[in-house]
């Protein structure tokens, strides 16, 4: 079937939309992110575990994106925005009185993965990542 360019674009757009579930990405991070992660873990292995990273599927505005992280038993959590000019977002250090969870609002320069790496009390590391769609354009500007 011969698709016009407009049809092909619209069709492609629709397909991307449908497959847009926030997928847990494994190790698809940028070099900068990997460097930051290595600095945090000292090169140790990273496993998977109970690390909950909450991000919107679609950010209303990339300027202010609410995120939350929770990892029972973690002593610190590193947050990275894999597609930002510089991936560092924040590192939370939890004292004894704190629950190992925190929420904040971040800037995302475009559609990308947000990565969280948690250091557990026993010295092990776990990570999680979520894809966030960041849109721009429309009358909001």
């Amino acid at each position, binding site marked *: 079937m011969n698709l016009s360019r407009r049809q092909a674009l619209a069709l492609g757009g629709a397909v991307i939309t449908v497959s847009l579930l926030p997928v847990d990405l494994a190790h698809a991070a940028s070099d900068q992110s990997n460097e930051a992660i290595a600095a945090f873990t000292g090169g140790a292995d990273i496993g998977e575990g109970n690390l909950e990273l909450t991000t919107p599927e679609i950010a209303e505005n990339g300027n202010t994106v609410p995120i939350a992280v929770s990892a029972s038993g973690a002593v610190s959590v590193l947050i990275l925005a894999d597609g930002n000019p510089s991936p560092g977002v924040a590192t939370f250090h939890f004292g004894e*009185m704190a629950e190992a969870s925190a929420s904040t609002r971040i800037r995302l320069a475009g559609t990308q993965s947000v990565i969280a790496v948690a250091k557990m009390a026993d010295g092990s590391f776990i990570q999680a990542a979520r894809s966030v769609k960041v849109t721009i354009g429309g009358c909001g500007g």
Partner: protein
Amino acid sequence: MAKIKPRVKAPKSVAAGEVFTVKTLINHKMESGQRKDKAGEKIPRQIINKFEAIFNGTPVLTADLDPAISTNPFIEFSMKISEAGDLAFKWHDDDGSVYETSKSIAIG
């Protein structure tokens, strides 16, 4: 620069060992250092680079912040205490300023 004013929500009293939520907000531009001014020059970075919540002198939460934290940084966390005391908050600015506030929490 506009006056920097923190806004904090913490309960006035909690049961010992009961988990409670703390919300903090502070107005700060969080100038990332990426933006350019009208002349095309990069506007120098100036952000809150560290946030601390300290209860009766013991650190509860410390957050090292990067320019990717949004303007007017918002940080929410949960904690529990076993004795009454003061929850102190500190925001450290790149320029050396430290903004502080605190809330007293009773056990009851």
